[in-house]
């Protein structure tokens, strides 16, 4: 019991003394996961909305595939990205393996199905009559989707929260693609694994606390944005 309290005490000291390496790691985690989430939103929201409003063959199969993708194991995403980015792989010329860019790609692949699936279900909750009315007023598909997106923006923010939450907590893909290189690709999650294995529980607790704080802060910010929109309606 004592070593846990001792660990927490030292962990707080590490955080309060502003350990530069811990904060650099936190910054990298935040950057990579935010970039991946943002890219997944930019690609996933339009794609999901389009899938939701259009009729096409095998639509149900596609939606089932996307829903399955929500549970894509990060290590599998990491493995696939690693194989593609490897020097001997098809995208080896990019030299992105073991770099933050490689980690962003891997996390983007993890987040994309989540954003698409949640966008589809949000869009399908819009009354089809409403959508058809906008079309009848002479709007193009794109304009109609845009109007609907404004209606469901709260749900879209919820999708962003879900996506970011999964990414910032994810360890398998960034370990494989990033390689946990000090000062380069060490993330909060991979650092926690490493410090725990080394028996440096104080450092592991400190990094774990920073990880929790980071997740909470970003979620708080997004939730404030979301709830403010509720009030202004």
């Amino acid at each position: 019991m004592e070593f846990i309290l001792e660990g927490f005490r030292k962990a707080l000291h590490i955080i309060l003394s502003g350990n530069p390496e811990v904060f650099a790691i936190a910054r990298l985690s935040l950057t990579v996961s935010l970039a991946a989430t943002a890219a997944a939103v930019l690609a996933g929201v339009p794609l999901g909305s389009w899938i939701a409003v259009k009729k096409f063959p095998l639509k149900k199969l596609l939606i089932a595939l996307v829903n399955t993708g929500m549970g894509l194991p990060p290590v599998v995403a990491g493995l696939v990205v690693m194989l593609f980015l490897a020097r001997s792989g098809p995208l080896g010329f990019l030299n992105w393996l073991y770099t933050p860019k490689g980690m962003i790609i891997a996390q983007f692949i993890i987040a994309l199905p989540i954003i698409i699936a949640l966008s589809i279900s949000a869009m399908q909750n819009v009354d089809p009559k409403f959508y058809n009315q906008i079309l009848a007023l002479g709007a193009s598909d794109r304009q109609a989707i845009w109007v609907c997106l404004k209606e469901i923006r709260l749900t879209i923010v919820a999708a962003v929260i879900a996506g970011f939450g999964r990414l910032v907590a994810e360890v398998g893909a960034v370990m494989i693609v990033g390689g946990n290189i000090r000062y380069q690709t060490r993330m909060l999650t991979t650092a926690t694994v490493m410090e725990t294995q080394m028996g440096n529980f104080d450092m592991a607790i400190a990094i774990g606390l920073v990880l929790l704080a980071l997740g909470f802060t970003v979620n708080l910010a997004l939730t404030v944005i979301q709830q403010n929109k509720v009030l202004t309606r």
Partner: protein
Amino acid sequence: MALMSAAVAALLLAGCAKTEPKSVVRLATTTSVRDTGLLDVLDADFQKDGRYTLQAIAVGSGQAMQLGRTGEADILWVHSPDDEKKFVEEGYGVDRTTFLHNDFVILGPEADPAKVKGSKKAADVFRKIAAAKALFVSRADQSGTHKKELKIWDAAKVRPAKGYYLEAGQGMAGTLSIAEEKKAYVLADRSTYLSMAKNLKLVIVSEGDSLLINRYSLILANPAKFPKVNSAGARAYFDFVLSRPAKELIEKFGVEKYGQQLFFYDYAVK
């Protein structure tokens, strides 16, 4: 939406600016070299002139050589002599240079349930552990340490009983943590053990057998086989590690922090 795309672009650009300009040298090495902190000490000196960035992937020697076999690594720093010879014979690497050694130690719980303390021969120790059905934790990751452990089991001409042999599949530090919790015997390189000793209750139960010596080598990826490797950068790191300043750093390393030298330099530098 526009704001968000601008944010993404800015983030991506920020990422690019940090990693691109210098020549990146990818070193595949073993966890013991990283976990002790030696890598960081050498790294600071190597990158000082700003020409190269070292990208060190710390994995087991088996995985390091796998990275070498697919041309992912520019240079290897490993400790698995039999595999290294095969690696070079098969044409994946060149200029293998054994330059460093330390030793392995056999660790176990203070209570020593298999009564191995005092046995000098590593093979005898392993035989006693198997006979006493004491728990043993193996790296089981094809690393240099794992290969050495298998060699000792061969020398002992026994295999541990089923259920008393745990295969961790992890690096040295992770494996030591498991052995610590399970109060098991384990083979470890002395440097990783010393760097973690403050967190461990396990003690050295046997050391000093010539079978326990641990030799590290550098191997350059064969540029004729892998045209994409950074052979100039790899050569620069190779020459740096085999230089007098690196020798001095390595020989000083650990004295202050652990009270003893961790790695012994064997290469005759010019």
